[in-house]
């Protein structure tokens, strides 16, 4: 087993990996940018190495600095988390050359599945069903225009190196194609360092169903069933669950076996996810391979009882897969809500700033994977995911109820988050009925606004704020006159109510 692992990531996923390493008795090295000195992952690791300025391109995407950090600390392996260098085959190859183990697939497999266009071609050849689309990256706008014309609008722009919705755009007419390509390329460049984009036929109202796969270095491959990730905004998942209401055991077996075939075709090893779109007639199409640990991996961990990060590390260390397909079972129902720093009432605009207070929900069947803490400033440079709230219960309805209670128990003060919005989705009758597709938010929550605040809770909030102002001794505006009155509160001297005073 490895004697030391470097985590080439930040935020909740770096924390998640550090915790797994601790459980396995493996010391960890955190790397961090100038914006992340105070981040949670830096506090938790055994060793830390600064790797450059705040923009990811100068730090978390800087291969030289990360390799140098592994060298200088004697780390034997690098866990890339998700995003940043996780699916960068050049980086995996660099690691192979430098004799540092990349905890992920081999660089050839990564290169194949990472090149979405090549991957689609290879899968099509292997008899895997795929969505109609461009089979190569075009150079000229005219090529994109004619490809789009051939597929028929609407079409989808996708980043060749992409994932997570970055660089993705739906284009519904030729007039939108030019600007959308430009924006998609720019986003792809800044997220992945590669501006290649291609076009695909856009399938309307599909479900997003993906299969978790584990493969060891000898090619032993199992799938750990599906996750449904249909609830998306900006083509980015926000709620994931397992099992999917859309699959029966026959379809599950068929898709699972197809997922394994995809991975074998790519000669893939380590953990990976095969994404499918499932249309309304239960036809499924191979979308892509996510050649990394997924954000939503805890959902699978809850339902199968298998720790995917432990498995990743064991496989990377050369251990043989101890899991056999026939032994694997799904039990109960798990749901994950992603907690983003964003304002759902303002088109999900990212929100940064100081987290004044955090209270994590707790209780049986509740898991909170988190990279934040009270007093931390959320930087503007990175993905706005703060944490993931995951619940498990014996059936879907119980899991929904548990999630609602956990969201009620969740407090983040100081920045906008999507918590209220998530509650409304979980509470929505169509969600509860399991009638989900990737258009769910657009169909049911377009221009969503938080409910008007009134009644008892508002009065309580006003009372609490008044109490706070009264006790903090700062200037308070008196009603009616609009004049400022300094309140010299007699209770000021009684307590130590100094919290939350202006910085």
């Amino acid at each position, binding site marked *: 087993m490895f004697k030391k692992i470097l985590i080439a990531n930040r935020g909740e996923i770096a924390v998640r990996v550090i915790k797994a390493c601790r459980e396995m008795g493996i010391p960890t090295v955190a790397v961090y940018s100038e914006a992340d000195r105070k981040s949670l992952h830096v506090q938790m690791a055994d060793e830390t190495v600064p790797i450059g300025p705040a923009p990811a391109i100068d730090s978390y995407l800087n291969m030289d600095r990360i390799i140098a950090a592994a060298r200088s600390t004697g780390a034997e392996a690098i866990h890339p988390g998700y995003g940043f260098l996780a699916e960068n085959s050049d980086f995996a190859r660099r690691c192979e050359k430098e004799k540092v183990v990349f905890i992920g697939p081999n660089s050839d497999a990564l290169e194949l599945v990472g090149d979405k266009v090549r991957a689609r071609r290879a899968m099509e050849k292997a008899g895997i069903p795929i969505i109609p689309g461009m089979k190569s990256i075009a150079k000229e706008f005219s090529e994109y225009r004619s490809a789009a014309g051939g597929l028929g609008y609407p079409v989808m722009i996708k980043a060749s190196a992409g994932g997570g919705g970055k660089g993705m755009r739906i284009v519904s007419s030729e007039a939108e194609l030019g600007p959308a390509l430009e924006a998609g390329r720019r986003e792809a460049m800044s997220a992945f360092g590669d501006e290649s984009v291609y076009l695909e036929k856009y399938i309307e109202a599909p479900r997003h169903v993906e299969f978790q796969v584990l493969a060891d270095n000898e090619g032993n491959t199992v799938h750990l069933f599906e996750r449904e990730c249909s609830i998306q905004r900006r083509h980015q998942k926000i709620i994931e669950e397992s099992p999917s209401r859309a699959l029966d055991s026959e379809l599950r077996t068929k898709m699972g076996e197809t997922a394994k075939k995809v991975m074998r075709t790519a000669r893939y090893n380590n953990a990976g996810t095969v994404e499918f779109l499932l249309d309304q007639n239960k036809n499924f199409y191979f979308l892509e391979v996510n050649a990394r640990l997924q954000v939503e991996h805890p959902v699978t961990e809850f339902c199968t009882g298998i720790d995917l990060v432990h498995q990743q590390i064991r496989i990377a260390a050369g251990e043989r897969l101890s899991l056999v397909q026939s032994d694997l079972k799904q039990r109960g129902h798990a749901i994950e809500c992603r907690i983003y*720093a964003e304002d759902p009432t303002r088109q999900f605009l990212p929100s940064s700033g100081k987290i004044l207070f955090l209270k994590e929900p707790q209780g049986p069947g509740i898991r909170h994977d988190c990279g934040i803490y009270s007093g931390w400033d959320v930087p*503007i440079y990175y993905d*706005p995911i703060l944490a993931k709230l995951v619940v498990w219960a014996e059936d879907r309805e119980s899991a929904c109820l548990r999630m609602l209670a956990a969201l009620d128990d969740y407090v983040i003060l100081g920045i906008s988050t999507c918590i209220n919005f998530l509650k409304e989705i979980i509470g929505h009758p169509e969600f509860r009925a399991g009638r989900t597709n990737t258009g769910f938010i657009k169909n049911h929550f377009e221009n969503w606004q938080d409910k008007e605040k009134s009644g008892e809770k508002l009065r309580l909030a*006003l009372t*609490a*704020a008044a109490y*706070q102002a009264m006790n903090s001794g700062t200037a308070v505006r008196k009603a009616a006159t609009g004049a400022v009155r300094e309140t010299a509160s007699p209770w000021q001297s009684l307590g130590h109510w100094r919290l*939350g005073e202006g910085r």
Partner: protein
Amino acid sequence: MEFEFFVDNALHRISLEKKEDGFEITDGETRLTADIQTVSANGLSVVVAGRASLVYIARDQDKTYVSIAGQQFILQEPGREGKGFHGADEKTQQGALIVTAPMPGKVIKIAVAEQEAVRKNQTLAIVEAMKMENEIKSSLDGFVKSIFVSEGELVDSEKPLIELVAKKETGAPAASGSGRP
């Protein structure tokens, strides 16, 4: 003692007085007695007529953040001018309009030039934050008077980006539009 706060742009008043047996709350016609106890650094236990609530609260400058059983409130103290809560990210003055950054981020593109005529919903600039591009669109027909930032610049929330002037014949200043995408 009377207090005023803006919640979602609506002004609310409440009065709180310390009494022997707790606090007297006056909210319009309603008068209640509350037992308010500080139970943790950010927690208040409020009991009104036997009903207990746990209130989480934190203050940052002129904003007080409150969470009660999963519902969040942001209470803003009235500003110096007695004006309301974030009057949105545009300020109008006699037909001129300052378009401001909706969130902290990096200006990655300025899509217009000074003196250029713009149409409503035309993209003026693109601000990137947390790897998402956000198009800043014009809320009016008019022209660009000045540009205050350049491409590549890091901007704070509400930093003025561009000043627009509404087209003459519309007359009225475009006050209610949103500069957000």
